[in-house]
């Protein structure tokens, strides 16, 4: 092995892949039943980058050569950068050796497009196939489907990969037209709907025949770039909702645009990465998937943007004060889940614990409820709660003032160090 050359390639091709945000390595149930290497269960983050993102998979491009010229992408044809390409064997060796040392859960393989979609997709599939069949590898494999690849290759990919994804890139078709004139939405949607049909069909088969092969057991996901084009949060979340509903997606990832290129269609190079907005979108996404919120309750015509100061659940609550206060000792789980400061686990614990005794503030605090937010919206077994006539706006100010004072305290202890 030419260590120097591989190092250089890895640096180039990991660097180019780092803007892909998907990092999940869970949701599959590939077991090591063949005395082989690896298993895939709950997903483990093996490390964290200095920017705080998780490192779970060896996330690389097969190549950063690309025939496309998408404005937001560092690998775009007209960008003057070093190019490299891995061989099939090199990717296999890296994956196996990193996995054996417990650095990673598996492989996330994407690619620039060399020649055409099928030519590129075929190589991605070859790598997955080699790992599974020659190396008995049961770790996680996420392949990025190349838009426009043939159904036949997509089908083969599904047999070896745990998850497949097609990047939508921009939340709307207009945004895509603007920044990626070579790509079209239909090329992204048709593999998605092919995969959806195939996954459903294979799951049915699996119910009938235990030996039927697994097909993309961790499902499909996609990613959209936020902040490169002027879409509102309403447009972003509506689009995510549409894909969850119509294509059975497991996840939609939101990637705050990192300005890396000079292009008059794009935000300037010194524009900050919209990290808070990205975080709020993920919170909103969770509300849709796990907390029973309808997308229109979070964003709508009157409220097209998420509040950056406060999380979207609190935002919803202060717009809907008529729902509160909720009695945590009586209310349904669905309603308790709507209280700011109460998460999934706390809500379930409340339901379990209240069978034994009525809960008071002290107990709610121990259970893990964020009292500083929740206290404006609930009543429990206590005389302390006195419902003052606060408006949603008052509550927002109180909560913000409190979290700000926490912030000030922090900086003070910092200063004392010097």
């Amino acid at each position, binding site marked *: *092995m030419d*260590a120097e050359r*591989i*190092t250089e390639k*890895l*640096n180039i091709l*990991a*660097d180019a*892949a*780092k*803007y892909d945000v998907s990092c999940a390595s869970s949701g599959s149930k590939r*077991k*090591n039943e063949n*005395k*082989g*290497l*690896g*298993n895939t269960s709950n997903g*483990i*983050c*093996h*490390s*964290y*980058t*200095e*920017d*705080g*993102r*998780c*490192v779970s998979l*060896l*996330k690389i491009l097969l190549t950063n050569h690309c025939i496309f010229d998408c404005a937001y992408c560092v690998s775009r044809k007209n960008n003057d950068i070093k190019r490299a390409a891995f061989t099939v064997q090199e990717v296999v060796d*890296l994956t196996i*050796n*990193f996995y*054996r*040392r*417990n*650095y990673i859960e598996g492989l996330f393989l994407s690619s620039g497009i060399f020649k055409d979609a099928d030519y590129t997709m075929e190589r991605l599939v070859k790598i997955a196939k080699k790992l599974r069949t020659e190396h*008995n590898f049961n770790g996680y494999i996420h392949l990025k489907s190349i838009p426009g690849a043939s159904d036949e290759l997509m089908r083969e990919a599904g047999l070896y990969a745990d998850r497949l994804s097609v990047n939508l890139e921009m939340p709307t078709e207009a945004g895509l037209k603007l920044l990626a004139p070579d790509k079209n939405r239909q090329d992204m949607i048709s593999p998605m709907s092919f995969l959806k049909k195939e996954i459903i069909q294979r799951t049915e088969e699996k119910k009938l025949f235990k030996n039927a092969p697994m097909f993309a057991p961790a499902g499909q996901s996609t990613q959209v770039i936020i902040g490169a084009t002027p879409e509102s949060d309403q447009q972003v979340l509506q689009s995510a909702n549409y894909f969850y509903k119509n294509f059975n997606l497991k996840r939609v990832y939101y990637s705050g645009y*990192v*300005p890396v290129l000079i292009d008059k269609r794009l935000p300037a190079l010194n524009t900050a*990465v919209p*990290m808070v907005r990205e975080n709020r979108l993920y919170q909103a996404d969770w509300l849709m998937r796990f907390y029973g919120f309808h997308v229109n309750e979070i964003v709508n015509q009157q409220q097209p943007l998420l509040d950056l100061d406060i999380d979207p659940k609190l935002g919803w609550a202060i717009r809907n004060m008529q729902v509160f206060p909720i009695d945590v000792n009586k209310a349904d789980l669905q309603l308790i889940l709507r209280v700011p400061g109460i998460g999934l686990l706390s809500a379930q*614990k*409340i339901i*379990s*614990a*209240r*069978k*034994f*005794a009525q*809960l008071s503030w002290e*107990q709610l605090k*121990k*259970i893990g409820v964020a009292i500083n937010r929740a206290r404006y919206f609930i009543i429990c077994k206590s005389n302390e709660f006195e419902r003052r006539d606060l408006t949603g706006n008052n509550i927002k100010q109180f909560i913000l003032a409190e979290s700000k004072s926490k912030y000030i305290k922090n900086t003070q202890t910092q200063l004392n160090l010097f």
Partner: protein
Amino acid sequence: MYTLVYDGTFEGLLTAVFEIYERKLFHVKLIKGEWRASALFEEVLQIITDENRANRVLRGLRKRLSAACVQRLYIAQMAEMENEENAIVGFIRYAFDADRNIEEDYGNKYVMRISEIIKMVRREKHRMEAFVRFQKLKDETFYAAIEPDFNVLPLLIRHFKDRYADQKWIIYDIKRGYGLYYNLHDTQYISLDFSEVNNPANTITVFSDDESIYQHLWKNYFASVNIISRKNTRLHLRHVPRRYWKHLTEKI
């Protein structure tokens, strides 16, 4: 107030519970360690671990709690958290004294405390599953050193055995001076003599030829995936506390 001194095993703890009920003790405190006649104003009792007594308590617990809950108590004890045996004993006494299954009564302080302890132990176990870094030795065995806060090595057996079925491996807890060895068939507990390994002349020769290459590649990869414009040290440290760094290839 009685102080019960037990040997630090789960059986010892269950035996202590037996004695509490047999002697009808009310205020008790459990401590781990050697019996010594001290504490002027306290009664000190030495608990002699007794398998029969422990089993009777265990059977009683199984009648009152789910199997998963009994397992949680076992894990909480085994993790050897300082002074937490009293929460476990408190939980067990509450389970025996109540007229129904109390394991989800999170309003109770013992039930809540056990749930917190389990959360901490599970997090440590999960972190070890993530942060173990194997180094390949000349004889193809993969070696890793760990120093977890709690004694979680026994909880890791299943995970690593399932995962690395086709390679020999050792995970060694330096802090507690014992390790696990998987020999392609089953795992056993071992203790190692490091006096030879720590000799600098030997350290280089024990690793396989490609070990340094892959370590180097991994470090490079780790540096390449970082996005400088998103740097967030506080978040980074929350996920990877500094005390784990010395065993993480990418942080050395």
